[in-house]
């Protein structure tokens, strides 16, 4: 990874190469958003502990295979986005753009399969009003899906920024490169939040 750019502010001796990935604002967003999700995770865990039989029984209606597929899709998508950022830094904008498209593809597949899963639930008569487990299940996964959907737009924006970079030269921390990193960081946040949701809802305990 290429280190040290114009924005870096050395924090101590020997750490002159440390820089804030993207820009500080995206980390404020990520921290705040992760905190809200953490609040929901905590409330869910509390309800789960208080209603363990209900939650265990309800989880029986959730197919863990869906969860596995979603997780693999998002992990792959994130990896592609990491590759895209690396390629962009090296100036390989065409390759970078291709990686973003793959990331976008995996992300879109995630969203599409979600609809099938929700449809299956509804046709089985399971809705967000069925019981408290499914209240959490639907609200949290839908909010996450909204984040992921916005993320698809962010990836498209990322690709646009990549295509606007200078070709073939190592790229310094221009505004374009910074926004590419910001976009990637948002997408990884979507992935990371999913990793927890997978554990809460799809892995039967």
């Amino acid at each position: 990874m290429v280190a040290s750019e114009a924005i870096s502010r050395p924090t101590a001796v020997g750490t002159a190469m440390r820089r804030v990935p993207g820009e500080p604002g995206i980390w404020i967003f990520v921290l705040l958003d992760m905190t809200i999700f953490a609040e929901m995770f905590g409330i869910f865990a509390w309800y789960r502990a208080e209603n363990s039989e209900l939650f265990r029984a309800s989880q029986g209606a959730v197919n863990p295979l869906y969860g596995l597929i979603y997780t693999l899709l998002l992990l792959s998508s994130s990896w592609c986005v990491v590759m895209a950022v690396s390629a962009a830094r090296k100036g390989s904008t065409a390759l970078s753009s291709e990686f973003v498209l793959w990331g976008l593809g995996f992300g879109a597949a995630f969203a599409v399969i979600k609809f099938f899963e929700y449809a299956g639930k509804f046709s089985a008569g399971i809705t967000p009003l069925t019981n408290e487990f499914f209240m959490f299940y639907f609200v949290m996964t839908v909010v996450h899906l909204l984040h992921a959907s916005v993320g698809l737009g962010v990836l498209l924006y990322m690709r646009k920024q990549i295509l606007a970079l200078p070709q073939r030269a190592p790229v310094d921390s221009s505004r374009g490169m910074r926004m590419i990193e910001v976009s990637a960081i948002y997408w990884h946040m979507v992935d990371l939040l999913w990793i927890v949701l997978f554990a809460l809802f799809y892995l039967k305990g």
Partner: protein
Amino acid sequence: MRPDENLGLDRRLEQLGAWSGIAWVVICGGGFGATGLLPVWAASTKPAALAAHLSDIKYQILIGMAVVLFGGVTFLMTWSLTMGYQIKKYANPSPLVFYVIVFVGLIGAIDGMIEGVIASAMAFRVDTLPPDTTQLIFDLIWFLFLIPWAPFMLCQLLAGFAILSEQNTGVMFPRWLAYVSFWAGALEVFCTSSVFYYHGPFSYNGLVTFWVPGASYFIWVLVFAVVQVRGWKNVKDGVPTSADVEPDVAPAVGPRVGRTDADRVRVEASVGI
């Protein structure tokens, strides 16, 4: 009136407008707190119990809501107008962004006004109305607060985009404020679930649905207003605003002419990030 007198009044109002955001948070938040309506009782409460409780705190509600109606409405209006004005002057000159911010500020003020009036009327008649009716009015207060969330999200998103735009020199609004606006905007969606649940975290008194968008809106206004107040020292003597900055005409290829990251860091440092 001499031209510079008029200008002086406008500048003074601009400065006060920023402070009015802080005033709004304190007065509206404080007023709401003083009503005794927080924490909000669940929608699943039996009407008779709710009416009895509201009757107990009748005068608290009336006085608290009088405070909310006095400062909570007025200062949200003044702050929103100033915020829109300053976004236009220092971040991005787009008239449409300005109009949306102004309109949403108006919607917010009217929404708050109706909440205050309804709450006052509810307390005014709590001893004579059937409890079911009292409960419905009680529901209305919280639904007014929560469910017309969409314009507020639009305002928060647009403010964020304006701040991230090329024309923003960062003299008043640092880039990180845009990300805080995006966060606050995103959280508004939680309000929707309040009409489907009668208790629990996603109902109108819920730990998530009430407190997350509710608190985050107040936090957003507070953070924004503090930025505006602190940024005043950079602009009070007149500095290049977004209207003076030439928008980039070349697409984002190659190094940016005229403004480097070092400049941006310098500007950001001067506004105290």
